[in-house]
């Protein structure tokens, strides 16, 4: 199904938004992604990913929360939509289902 699939980086961003709840916007999402994945990302990558996710309907956004630190400009705060939750769950289930099918012996036994 085109448009509903989640890319790996997209999934990271979605998860970060989930963690942050009410405080998910560009910079904070970037921080979370960097914190958990341990890899550097640029703001513009995060931005375009968030916007793509919004287009797909997984996120919704509103403006709010201006601070002085931002030169008085408001943030775009993201929230996961129900569609987003659903697709996150699907992704998770898909993985666990596939995990289940990896033969245990092969996996835990080390070298084949």
């Amino acid at each position, binding site marked *: 199904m085109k448009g509903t699939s989640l890319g790996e980086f997209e999934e990271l961003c979605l998860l970060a938004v989930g963690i942050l709840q009410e405080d998910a916007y560009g*910079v904070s999402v970037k921080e979370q992604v960097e914190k958990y994945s341990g890899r550097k990302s*640029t703001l*513009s990558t995060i931005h375009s990913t968030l916007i793509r996710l919004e287009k797909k309907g997984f996120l919704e956004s509103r*403006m709010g929360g201006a601070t002085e*630190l*931002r030169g008085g*400009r*408001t943030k*775009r705060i993201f929230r996961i939509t129900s569609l987003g939750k659903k697709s996150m769950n699907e992704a998770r289930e898909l993985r666990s289902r596939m995990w289940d099918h990896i033969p245990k012996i092969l996996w835990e036994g080390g070298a084949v």
Partner: protein
Amino acid sequence: MDTPTPSRILTRILSWFCREDRIEEIEGDLAELFFERATTSNIKKAHMFYAWNILKAFQWSNLKKFTQMKTSKGLLINYIITSVRSLRRNRVYALINYFGLTLGLSSVLFAFIAIQYEYSFDRFAESDNIYRVVLHKQDQAKMNYSSNVPYPMATAIRNEIQGAGKVTGFHYSEMEKVKYDNELRYVNNVVFADSEFFEVLNFEVLSGNPKRILNSPGQALITDEMSMVLFGEADPIGRIIKLADENIEIAGVVSSPTQTHLDFNLIVSYPTLSSQFTADFDAINSWSMVLSGYCYLKLPSNDNLQSVEKRLYQLVQKYHEGTEKENNNYYLQALNDIHFNKRYADPRISTVSKDYLLILSSVSLFIMIIACINFINLNTAMASRRAREAGVRKVLGARPGQLINQFVLESMILTLVSLLSAMFVTWLILPFYNTFMNKELVISFSDHTFLIGSTALFVIVSLLAGWYPAFMISQFKAIRALKSEYSSVTLKGAGLRKFLVSFQFVISQIMIIGTLIVFSQIEFIRNKDLGFDQDAIITAPLFSRDSTELRKLKSILLQHKDIKHVSFGLGAPTSNNDLGTSFTFTNKENLEEANIRLKTVDNDYMETYGLRLLAGQWLTSSTTWQSKKNEFVINESALNAMGIENPIDVIGQNIELGINHMSGPIIGVVQNFHVRSLHEEIPPTVMLYFPRLHYEAGLKISGLNVPETLETIESAWQSVYPDEILQYTFMDDLLDQFYIQDKKILLLFNIFSWTSIFIACLGLFGLIAFTIHQKMLEIGIRKVFGAKSLHIIWILSTRLLLLVCAATIISFPLAFVAMNRWLEGFAYRVDISPFYFILALLITLLITVGSVGYRAFKASIINPIRILRNE
């Protein structure tokens, strides 16, 4: 600490390309990241990171939707192809435009770099708050301006004026004798600075603690370049050099100053300064003697400016005595003003007047405009050739806006190619300009302002040149265009072309008149009688004032048959070597005072330099070598200052000088000679014998066997001053130094005006070629009816010649005003005669006939059958 803010320019760039609905959050996020960076690491990195982020934000999804961008890619390619084709088809016209634009753009780029260079002078930390104390000294005749102040000034300000911030005082010596490793050298520009020098002017210190060094007597900092000269690669720290009679330890290194009015090679601590560095005058603690002392300060805030100046006035009241209490006043000159203000400048500092920069920029802009005019003229004239193409495009649905886009794009292509060539040309020119003007301009493609400037130039020029022709073509009615109803005869725009061509003539004529007047003024100066004989005179510095040594030197020199006269004094008649002081005299029983220049001379001075005596006698040898009695010779200006008409009447009158209250009778009057350059009027001058101030020898030679004579002079100096190096100068060279700046400006003027005339000619050439092409039929028919060749040439060129004449209505008055202003800088100048204007008119007429004539002639002798056969 101020909170850092992200660069506003970068933010604006972001808002320029970014979609409105995205900009808010992106700006906010970037600002947040910037502050985080700025606090966790340094600000510079934060700025770089910010710029990088903005660059990364340049993504398709973030871009504004430009309405104009709807032109499809295929159409764009088609535009480019047709543009290139059309340029190739009209090769001659394209080349004319290309050359014109390249020259025009080069001159603008060049002026841009030159002006940017001049404005980058004296960039210190907080340079907006740095000031120099300057002296205004009133005398009867005029106000005298100087950047030299009494030596105790800095200490007085530091101790007595609150809110003056950091203050530094220093002595500046143009040349000092330095001995190291038994080798003697002259080191230029030696500063004796007090310990706050580096706090006011933050020159880069490479090693050593400047504050401590400048507090300790006998220590100095050296520039890295000077260190290379004196010590080579070796570490300069701890080395001892001998400066005059002092042993100086090098304790620190500064990097050589660049682009500053305050050039130096050595900074010696102020406590080292003694009277041996101030010509044995006891000036260091004196308020009444002004030699080469300077005082700079860095105000904590510019709000203090007025209050500090007010307090300076109180210092005058407190420390100055006598008439100086009323006549002297001190002001603060902004550091940023020093490089551009000639008023306070020493002769050794080259300032650049803002007028010069204004002339440079306007002349280069004019050249650019001339090139643009060519472009507009040729393209509107040739619009008929593109009419059919425009018609077809319109029939196929092109809107006027799209047509404009297409033709502007064409001009952009040409402009871009020209701009790239212009950069190359500028790059080629700069080294020549640098050696010629003694500057260090560089073209730097990584420089922001240069890149932004040239981009702006590109956009402006391609719009300026391309928009009107494009607009005109876009307005064609499709049907009429396809019926070939547009020809250059029926086209509008002829009026505009006439106007533009006359405008070109206006500019060319102004430049020609300017060049002519500058040229004749400089010739006038070079040939003006200076009031003394300047041929075959050599001047050389004296290294001691010891009378036995001087006598010995004189006798050795005079033994040679080709050395006619030898004279010692403060300096040649026209030189910067004189002292400013005042003298008092009795005028109708009132004691009056006047400011004068004082020149010290000896009994042979008049004969050596060929001064002309008007009355009385010159100082005789009996008065000079021995006597303690003072006798004075004055010049005509001094006579006038005393209010006496007949020189005989002044002989025997007693006068008293401001210096040391020396008094004595006037024994002679000489005809005026130029004491300073011809930029200045001849000041009242008094000459006396005063061997303590004999610093220069003047030698009148026969002019025969010059090399041999020079050898004799050198060996004479060698025998009297074994420790010194002789540096002699020919008087003519010395005099040339005064006008070298004017000469250089003349040459620049020449180059610029010929460039502009050349471009204008190119345009005329193209225009006339086109007109003839269009008028071929007319010419053919006229010839069939018996018109003579000359008549045809006449028809073709009268209009242009009329335009040339019409242009004078504007160009003459403008040129008159401008040149009058330039000439005001000279006290002695040529009159602006009608001759220059008539000559300029003739030259432009000639040039027009020259560029039009050949084509017109060729057209006039053509066989009419060849033209009319096809009809």
